């Protein structure tokens, strides 16, 4: 418990750091941390300029991690992501030079702008925590955290991620525009020097790995697990949903809930955690029916409906 307290302090320091740079985006920061602590990855979907990149950079800087950025373009090749073996004439052999995927925190900017071949190189790394280059499997660094961004507005020349691959992201977040006060405050703060320049790391890589281990130990009661299952099953039976959430989604929801509980200083999961996270975890894992799309319903609305239909457990069998 004592250790948890210490780590909690660290986590709140990270959040404080984000708050210094990103104004009014504490919830997004916490959710990103959830993904980080649950050893998952985040898909940020929003219009350009709302601070997606800034958020990732702030996180990386706070964590004292190796930050890498990949700008996805249509001509980007898989080897640009994973790295390539180069012939060293002096040594007379091929030497592997790792690509940007060998960082701790990787920002995959505009992931939908590149070809599926390149996308899958990244996604394989996210899933397997290793990459295969020239027939050789090379493990990635620990911790490994990808934040991918995509722009939902442009369709020309984009390659939307296939559903199977969206599943790899534990959370899908949106940033949204700042409020009037927040935007004013932002102008104020950035007028002289950008606050990110003055940030210093508050958590080491090693600490992060330990916390990730701690999160796995957070307790989840049977009735809350049942609640997760009920939510997921509800998506499979919903009339507006063509394809429901896979079992991988259930696991993701549980992992995220554990991380969220940990961030909130608890060593057990509440239904509140699950309920809060469900839209972020489930929305990108369902495919709506044509009718629902035609009616102008969004996946988010449907998931909220599912949450509303599902009973929260308030009893335990003794």
């Amino acid at each position: 418990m004592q250790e948890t307290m210490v780590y909690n302090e660290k986590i709140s320091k990270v959040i404080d750091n984000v708050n210094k740079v990103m104004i009014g985006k504490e919830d997004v920061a916490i959710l990103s941390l959830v993904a980080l602590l649950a050893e998952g990855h985040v898909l940020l979907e929003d219009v350009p300029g709302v601070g997606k990149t800034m958020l990732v950079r702030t996180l990386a800087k706070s964590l004292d991690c190796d930050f890498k950025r990949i700008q996805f373009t249509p001509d980007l090749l898989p080897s640009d992501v994973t790295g390539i073996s180069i012939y060293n004439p002096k040594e007379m052999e091929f030497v592997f030079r790792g690509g940007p995927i060998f960082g701790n925190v990787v920002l995959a900017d505009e992931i939908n702008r590149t070809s599926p071949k390149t996308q899958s190189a990244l996604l394989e790394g996210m899933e397997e925590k290793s990459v295969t280059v020239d027939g050789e499997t090379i493990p990635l660094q620990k911790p490994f955290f990808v934040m991918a961004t995509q722009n939902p507005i442009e369709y020309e020349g984009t390659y939307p991620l296939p559903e199977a691959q969206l599943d790899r992201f534990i959370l899908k977040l949106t940033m949204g525009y700042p409020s009037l006060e927040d935007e004013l405050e932002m102008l104020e703060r950035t007028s002289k020097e950008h606050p990110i320049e003055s940030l210093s790391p508050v958590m080491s890589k090693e600490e992060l790995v330990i916390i990730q281990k701690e999160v796995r130990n957070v307790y989840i009661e049977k009735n809350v697990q049942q609640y997760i299952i009920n939510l997921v099953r509800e998506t499979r039976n919903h009339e507006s949903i063509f394809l429901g959430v896979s079992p991988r989604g259930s696991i993701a929801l549980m992992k995220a809930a554990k991380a969220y509980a940990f961030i909130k200083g608890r060593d057990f999961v509440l239904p509140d955690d699950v309920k809060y996270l469900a839209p972020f975890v489930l929305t990108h894992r369902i495919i709506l029916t044509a009718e629902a799309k035609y009616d102008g319903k969004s996946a988010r609305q449907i998931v909220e409906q599912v949450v509303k239909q599902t009973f929260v457990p308030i009893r335990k069998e003794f």
Partner: protein
Amino acid sequence: MSKKNQTNIPFIYTSILYIAGLLLFLEWLYPVDEVTDTVFLGIFVIYTIFCFFISILQVKWWLSLLLKGFGVFFILNGVYSDHSFWSKHWFTELFADFGFNIQALFARQWFDLSNMFRTLLFLIIIWLMSYLIYYWFVQIKRVMIFSVLTFVYITLLDTFTVYNADWPIIRTFVIAFLALGIANVLKEIQSESLQSYRLSARPLWILPLVAIVLFSSVVGYAAPKLDPQWPDPVPFLENAVNGDGIGVGGVIQKVGYGENDSTLGGSFVQDYTPVFKAFMQEENYFRVESKDYYTGKGWVNSDEGDYVEQVDWDITFETFSSTVESNPSELVLTFDERANIPKLIYPYGARHVVAQSEDVALLLNEETGEIRTEVDDDAVNLRGYSIKYNSPSYPIDLMRNSGAPEDEELVRKNTRLPNNLPDRVGELAKEITANHESQYDKVRAIERYFSGNGFVYQIEDVPVPTEEQDYVDQFLFDTKAGYCDNFSTSMVVMLRSLDIPARWVKGFTSGEKIEEDVNELGDDVYEVTNANAHSWVEVYFEGVGWVPFEPTQGFDAPNNYAVDTSTEDDLLEAPEAPEMPEQDLEKPEQDVQDAFNPSTGENDSKFEITKTHGIILAVIFLVLIGVVVWKRHQLRIYFLERKMQKRKDAAAYQDAYHYVLRLLRHKGFQKDPDQTLREYAMRVDNFYSTDEMGRLTTRYERLIYQNGSPNIVDDELSNLWKNLIKKILG
């Protein structure tokens, strides 16, 4: 109360409410006339209206005081004084009277208060009531209390006094419900939610209310109603208090000897409480008194009669003349401790009494034959005495040949009948006796009439005549079912309709023989219980005197009555019900009951005990249920708390926590199924401005979502829980 409450309510509504209050209060005044000896009720009513009128005008307090006070003295002057209002004499008179009464008040001589002073006090009460009702009805608009009190008052008076509240209760209903409706609307308007609502100055909206109240009143009035399901509370309560049998009147009574016979009818239950034991050689009917005036509902005495002290305990009362043959005999009565009849119980032909205490005075009422037993002018119950008597054998020849009675006063008194007695009673009597010449034969014919012709003896389901019905007429033509009072009264009335002098006699039968041959005189012991209280008939024969007859089915008069061995034919002639064996004669009631309850014939007293006790048990049971329903929260809380403190485990706390959820649901805080406990707790805490639900919920969350289930219930938690419940229950 503050005036601003009334600002948005037009005067007309407050006046309507207040007038309703006035009408309800008048309902309190009307019965005063009937249940007390008040003469000037009209004046009180006028003064009430006067006071209410001044109150509603809301004049300055000193003007109101002056006017109302002036009214009081004006009335006192008008009613009690010959002097004019302003004369000096009147004031001296007034002061003298007050002085006297105030002294009497301090000396607590309540009965010495003068009428004038009492009137003054009563007027002051009316005065105060006008204020009080103004406060209740107009200012705080709480009509319920006074309405309920009015109902209680009227129903109590209706039950316990002569006051007949048939109409007043309907009036009260209509007025009270109108007032309740209006007051409720006004209260709603005054509450914050309708502050902006402007009430129309025209009271048209009251019309639907009036229509509904009138409609429900008419429906209620016209709807068929069950007969009273409960015993008349007066005899019921008296029974409960005294433990003795009392009057034969009302709906269901315990049988026994009673004083009041003015309202006969109704069922009763048998009461086998012993009254006395008689040591005697032959069976006797024990006479106590007779009654001579039939009202159509029951029996009263036309005059109180004079009481004559019986010198040396020699009884001067004679029912038969000296020509009647009689055997000197003696019997001894010993009374049960519970017996409460401060009168001599004596056989026919009683001559002399020997009692243990010499202080006892015997006072004979020569009209009725009632002999009071007193010591120093106080009625006493004698514990025992012996009576010397001449057991008569009535000469049937003489009776058959007796002529018209000469004593006109006696005939007048004992042939009186109520004017509204239905003619068919007399016609029936004529029909029965058409073939008989002599008075004796006529009497016997009527006596025999009851042993057949569809009459049955029963003590249950015996109705009380309605207001329009005659007791005898009802029995003879409608019900044909009843007990001794029905039979004896009917016989007397029929005889009287034939101008044969007859009277109604009360007393006891000889009871049940419990021992034989107990002493050297050869006395048998008879036990007489309340169930043996009886009534029968005495008929006057010129030259013979009063002769007892027994019309009641299943009863047979003892040997010494009207049976002359010389007239065998008389016995043969009587087509009575088959002679009953000795045992049946003593307990005819039992036979009847057996007929109705063939399965439970073995023990009557047990049956009755279960019945009365059953009612009491049912009442207790209902009260208990009421208390449980009323106190269910407290009970539930008590048990849950005990369980928590005793077991200190998670399951107990889970129950306790869910009880809070249930209470909240009753208070309108429905927890949505998708709502988490935290979200719900926040909502509740916001409403009650507390953090207790949040704290309770945090503990509960740890219980049901955290690993393991430690014994987490401590005093702090149970206190928290109790506090929150107190808040919820308000």
